[in-house]
Each structure stands twice: as structure tokens, then as C-alpha cells.
């Protein structure tokens, strides 16, 4: 059974990587796989989005399957399925293989995950959603998207790439070509905050130094949720009393610290059905079966702690609600096409980074503070980095909670993300410096939103010359930002998009 569990972990992780690599345009406007399935299976993501978003979200129905199975099997998800859990196990089994852990992590730290869950529950109940910070599936996909995968690309591109011009090229180029076709991104991805997001991820991995599954035991709110759900599940760890010789190996080897000192009692909310104890038991005294009698430990939770967490979660809502961003939105808060109204959007968005991963021009970036602290890492279009491809609908296809609606192409083309505006003090033809037209030629709308007018200018040298100057037709502009991306000026763009006039606004075209 232990081998079966290992096989499951490997298989699921490989599927996870496969879907991650396929969260990319593959010569087809529609993605071939449900690449967001891991998030849609996640009951914490689903619960928070439904609770905070005050909506029935049919996309997340697979989470009910996990809830159902958890009710029967307990916290199997963490031991058999969770890709982050598998990465942690792998880290312990490789990096920390020879480590003798000396530091004792206090048992009371286990409570933290319940308190975090309570906090998330209360804030979500009052429509503010912080699940993104702590949900393991969001964490792993976001970290892979914004940090791990770009870093891997960077390493390979900067090592194999330059060898192209050297005598070893006949060996390295086929390898590089193979990697480009099957593993690397089409273009090196670049994300804001890649370093920070990456270090948080590696911090979670590094915590294996203190304890196996440190994250899962102490902090993971999804683990807490599944533990609570599966505590009284049918399939339980059972120890046959006559057979047990009290060797204590099960207690010593438990990666979750779920076996009590008497070796019979199991911390049911912590046991992840990994079945290591069953494998190490010299007397085959341990089984995982259905039935009634099995010693389960109670939850070590103080009512005061839970109430405090709930209170903090509730208090977060008015605290963040009175921040200044709520009064005056940042003009660079440009959301992906099909994004819901801002409050609803943030209530549903789990910052998983799927939309950023799939964005064909690398334009969707984790927000800094454009949407306030509660909007951290939510997707914003940063047009100087990349634009929204006019004929592309991929971000709406991957959003697991419907924060970005899945729109048919013809509808998506009508969505205004904002409006472009020419910086006339900076634009070459406006300044009377030279011709340009680059923004106009890239403008993708069927009827051009950027139009040129021939105008006579007296240059700084007193010459009278004629230049084609760009104007933006605000009725036609969709705010895709390709003009801002492609503006040839090497510093800031002379044409830029703001969220003004976005379709999500109350009266878009009156502003």
C-alpha cells in the first residue's frame, strides 16, 4: 500500500507538471486540457470563492468529489494527491535524507493551521478573501508560474543558449532544441516579484529541515479543512493490540507526527493515510480499514484561540475596507478581459497565476499594491511588459473560479480593459521630432482605434514640417496595450493605457 501511495504521488505530480506545461498556447485557440483541474478540486479554493463571492460557482464542482472522499477516507488528499505535499516528501527524501533533526517543533504549533483556517473563514464570510496566501495548490502553481519555471528557463537559456556559437554546439544544440520543444516556454517568461514568490516557496520547502511535512502539520489551511472533514471518516488507522510489541517505530516514522506515544491512538486530523506505519510495523499489527473501533485523539484546540482568529478575520474586512485604494483606484489597475467587477473579482481570485502562466504576451503580472494589500498578486495587465493579444481568450479559459469569465472571441474583442492615451510631450511626431506610426500599425481593432492625422508642426529649429500624429478614438480603443508595448521609445512609452473607460466600470464610456 505504501508503494501504491508513492505511485499515486508520482503519477499525480507528473500529471500536474504535464498540465502546467500545457497551460500555454499550442497552435490552437482553445486549450486541449482542463489545465486548472487541480484548483477546481481544491475545497478550500472552492469554499472561499463561493463564500466570499456569494455565488454558486459551477466550475468548482470537482471539489465536492474531494470533500466526499475525505469524509470516507480522511485526509488522503495530503498524502496521496497534493502536489505540494509530494514536493515536500521529495525534498525530505533527497535534500534532507541524512539529516538528524534535533530541534523539537512544539506540538502546539499544529494549532496554527486551524487558527489560519478560522481566520480565512471569517474574512471570506465577510467577502474578503485571503486564501491565496496559504492555499497549497495556489502556492505551488503561482510559484511554478512566476518563479520556478521562469528560473529553470533562465538557467537553461543562459547555459545551453550561448553554447550555440562554440565547438560543442553539435552536442548541445539537439539537447537544447529538444528542451525547447517539450519543456521550455516559447519565450523566457518574466514576472514581477518572481524573487519574493520564489523565496516563499523555497522557504516552505526548507522548513522540512525542522520537521517532515512542517507546512502540512502546522500551517496548511487546506490540510486543516480536510482534517476536520475527515476526522470521523470510516477508513482509519487501527492497531491490533495483541500483535503490537510497542517497538515505537510507527510513532518515530510518522511524517505527520500523527501517532500518539501509546502507539494506538491516531491524530485523526493529522493522519494523511500515507501508510508508512503499516509498512514499518514488524508485526503487521497496523491496518487501514473501515469499522467503528479505533482510538482517535481529540483536537487540541482552545475555544479562545479559534474565537480570536475568527475575530481577526472579521476585523480584517473593515481594516482593509477603509484603506485608501477603496476610495481612489490605481489607474494602472488593468484587469484581464472578462474580469468580474473589482470586489467580486478579488473575492474569487485565488492568485494561482494560471492566467499569468497562459498569457501569450506575458502581459498579465502579479499586482503589487494597485488593488491594495488584499489584492496582492492578483493579475494586472502591465502593457510595457506585455500586451493583451487581440484574438486570444486563454486567460478566461484557465481561471478556476470564474473570476475571469470565459468569453467567446467575438465577445472578448469588445471588452475594454481601459483606454490608451498619447503622451504628447513624449511622442516623436507630437514633439515634432520625426515620423513614427508604430502604435497605429499595431493597433488591432477591426476599425483602427489609433488614427493618424497629418499636421504641420514648427520644429524647435524653426522648420515647418508635416507629421502623422496619433490620436486615440476612445470609442474603438479596447485598452489591449499593444501600442504601449511596441512604442519604440526606449524609456517610458509615449502612449499608455489606464483603466479609464474599462467595461467593468459603472458607466464606462461616460468617464
Amino acid at each position, binding site marked *: 500500500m505504501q508503494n501504491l501511495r508513492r505511485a499515486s504521488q508520482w503519477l499525480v505530480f507528473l500529471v500536474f507538471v504535464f498540465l502546467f506545461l500545457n497551460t500555454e498556447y499550442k497552435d490552437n485557440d482553445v486549450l486541449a486540457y482542463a489545465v486548472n483541474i487541480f484548483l477546481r478540486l481544491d475545497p478550500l479554493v472552492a469554499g472561499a470563492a463561493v463564500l466570499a463571492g456569494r455565488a454558486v460557482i459551477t466550475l468548482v464542482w470537482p471539489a465536492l468529489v474531494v470533500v466526499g472522499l475525505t469524509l470516507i477516507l480522511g485526509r488522503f488528499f495530503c498524502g496521496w494527491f497534493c502536489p505540494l505535499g509530494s514536493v515536500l516528501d521529495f525534498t525530505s527524501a533527497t535534500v534532507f535524507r541524512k539529516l538528524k533533526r534535533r530541534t523539537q517543533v512544539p506540538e502546539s504549533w499544529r494549532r496554527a493551521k486551524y487558527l489560519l483556517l478560522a481566520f480565512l473563514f471569517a474574512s471570506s464570510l465577510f467577502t474578503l478573501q485571503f486564501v491565496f496566501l496559504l492555499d497549497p495548490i495556489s502556492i505551488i502553481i503561482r510559484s511554478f508560474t512566476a518563479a520556478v519555471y521562469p528560473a529553470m528557463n533562465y538557467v537553461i537559456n543562459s547555459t545551453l543558449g550561448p553554447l550555440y556559437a562554440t565547438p560543442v554546439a553539435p552536442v548541445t544544440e539537439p539537447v537544447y532544441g529538444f528542451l525547447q520543444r517539450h519543456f521550455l516556454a516559447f519565450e523566457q517568461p518574466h514576472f514581477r516579484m518572481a524573487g519574493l514568490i520564489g523565496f516563499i516557496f523555497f522557504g516552505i520547502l526548507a522548513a522540512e529541515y525542522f520537521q517532515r511535512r512542517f507546512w502540512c502539520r502546522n500551517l496548511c489551511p487546506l490540510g486543516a479543512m480536510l482534517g476536520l472533514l475527515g476526522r470521523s471518516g470510516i477508513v482509519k488507522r487501527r492497531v491490533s493490540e495483541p500483535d503490537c510489541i510497542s517497538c515505537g517505530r510507527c510513532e518515530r516514522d510518522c511524517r505527520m507526527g500523527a501517532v500518539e506515544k501509546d502507539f494506538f491512538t491516531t491524530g485523526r486530523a493529522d493522519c494523511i493515510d500515507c501508510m508508512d506505519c503499516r509498512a514499518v510495523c514488524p508485526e503487521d499489527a497496523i491496518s487501514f480499514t473501515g469499522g467503528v473501533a479505533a482510538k482517535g485523539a481529540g483536537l487540541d484546540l482552545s475555544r479562545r484561540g479559534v474565537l480570536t482568529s475568527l475575530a481577526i478575520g472579521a476585523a480584517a474586512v473593515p481594516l482593509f475596507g477603509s484603506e485608501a485604494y477603496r476610495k481612489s483606484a490605481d489607474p494602472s489597475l488593468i484587469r484581464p478581459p472578462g474580469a468580474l467587477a473589482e470586489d467580486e473579482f478579488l473575492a474569487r481570485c485565488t492568485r494561482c497565476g494560471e492566467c499569468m502562466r497562459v498569457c*501569450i504576451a506575458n502581459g498579465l503580472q502579479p499586482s503589487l499594491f494597485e488593488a491594495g494589500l488584499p489584492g496582492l498578486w492578483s493579475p494586472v495587465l502591465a502593457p510595457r511588459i506585455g500586451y493583451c493579444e487581440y*484574438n486570444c481568450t486563454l486567460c478566461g479559459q484557465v481561471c478556476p473560479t470564474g473570476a475571469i469569465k470565459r468569453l467567446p472571441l467575438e465577445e472578448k474583442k469588445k471588452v475594454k480593459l481601459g483606454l490608451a492615451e498619447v503622451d504628447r510631450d513624449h511622442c*516623436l511626431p507630437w514633439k515634432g521630432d520625426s*515620423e513614427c*506610426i508604430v502604435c497605429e500599425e499595431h493597433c488591432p481593432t*477591426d476599425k*483602427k482605434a489609433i488614427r493618424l492625422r*497629418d499636421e504641420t508642426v514648427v520644429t524647435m529649429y524653426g522648420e515647418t514640417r508635416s507629421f502623422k500624429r496619433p490620436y486615440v478614438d476612445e470609442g474603438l480603443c479596447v485598452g489591449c496595450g499593444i501600442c504601449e508595448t511596441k512604442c*519604440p521609445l526606449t524609456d517610458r512609452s509615449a502612449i499608455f493605457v489606464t483603466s479609464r473607460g474599462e467595461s467593468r466600470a459603472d458607466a464606462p464610456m461616460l468617464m
Partner: protein
Amino acid sequence: MLNRREFIRVAAVAGAGVVLNPGVPDGAWAAKPAPKGGPKVVMAKGGPVGRLTREAVDALGGMSAFVKKGETVIVKPNIGWDRRPEFAANTHPELVAEVVRMCLEAGAAKVKVFDRPCNDPRRCYTNSGIAPELEKIADKRLEVSYIDERRFRDVEIPGGVTIPRWSFYEDVLDADKFINLPIAKHHNAAVLTLGLKNVMGVIGKNRAVLHKKIHEYLPDLNRVVKSHLTIVDATRVLVANGPQGGSLADVKVLDTVVAGADVVSVDSVSCTLFGLGPADVRYVQLAQDAGLGVADLSRIDVKKISV
């Protein structure tokens, strides 16, 4: 050909900077006796596109007049935009495929097809129809690839007037032959984009800055990239809102290709399809001044065929 009203529209969108010039009206210069020794340009009208292309090249002596056995040939269509073929933003896929086939038949050792697009390259290659059409040609000698940023090489432009150096794609610099397959269309900076302008797809760096003085820069770029054969796709053209288009209202079906060994002559003759002449499209005239070919319509030997 466009009628007068249409070319006025072209000229109008092209801007007041363009001197309105009907060029040499269709028929008038064609009826003149062909000047001896001038560059030969074939203007073929009809269809389907593949046959039209082949007969145009045959009229120039066939592909073997341009491509010798064992040579490496670059076939450079315009794959600049995420637009389907009918929008006239990219070279017609069947034209590209036919040229590739002819190169292979002529015994080319390698035929490479690529462009440096403005939209996402994958979307452009797919939606232009060019990559799917070329996939049908099962021949190991054909290589359809995306631009590899590592392969741009900085070179000095011999005799460069406006730019002394620029970076160019290595494959083009190293190839035996360069076959230039532009689509003829309106362009707000260049008036029209034709063969000389198509070369911008094989240069590196921030090429958008070249729009500052595009007419002056283009001849210099063409000093490095010499086209051995140019076939202008005018099967359907954009008469306004080029080079990207996006509206079928801006597309005019002309069922024409213009082919020849002298890219300047081919461009010059192609201007007439829009009711313009080389004087209206300054870079064509400047290319002649730079000694890159003949723009002067009276010195070009145009052969018209219908297919």
C-alpha cells in the same frame, strides 16, 4: 487594378505628404515596346494562387534560373500578423508553398522559411495559414522555424548612408539565395509595403525605431540583404489601414502576382497596382538612387500574362 477612386482613397490615407500621381496608367507603359536590356518583371493575373505563382516564375525562366542544385535558399514571406489569409496582412499561404515546392524541385539542398512577426509568432505562423500549408510538404530539406534571437549578427552596412551597422539574421547572411515574398499593402509610414520593406523581417534589434526615417533606412538594409527573386503577392491587397488591416472592407482582390529578379523593379511595377508610381513610394526611388536596381518604369521590361 484599382480604379481611380480607389487609389485616391489609398493616397488619402497614405497622407498629404504623398504627391498624388496616377503613375503610369495601366496599359500605357505596358503597350510601349519593351526596353532592351532592362530588368524583366512579370505581372501575372488569374488563379488559382499556386498556378499563378508557378507560371509567373516560369515566365522568368523557371526556378532553376534562380536556384541551383545544392543551394541553401531563404524563402521570406510576410508572416507579420495574427490574421487569417483573407485579411491580406500576410503573404498567401499557397503562394509560399508553391515557391517552396519549386525551390525543392530545382534541387535546393535546404529551404528555410521564417519571419520575425509583430504579434505572437506562433499565432502568426498558424493563423496566416502558412505553417499549416507548409506542413503538407513532406520534405526533409524544408525547415520552417521561428526566429532564434541568438542568430542575429551585427554587420557593417557597406556604403550605408543612414545606418552604418545593424543586426541581421545569420541564416540570411549565410544563405546562397534569398527569395523575397512580400504581400503588397498599404502602410502609413512607407506608403506601401513591398519587397524592399519585407526585408525588415530578417533584421534584429528595436526595428520599430526605423520608422523614424523609413524611406531612407530601407535602401541601406537592402544593401545587406540582396533579394535574388521577388514575388509580390497582390492576389488580395490592403488598400487602407495597413500593414495589419483587420477589416475586409480594406481588402481588394486583384488576383495578381508580380515577379522579377530586381526587387526595385518589382516594387516599382507593384506600385502601379495602387495607382502609384515609384516617385510616390520614396524608398523605391531611393533604392534606385542607391544603385540597388531600376525603379524607372520606362526602363523596366514588363511582361503581362494571364493564367
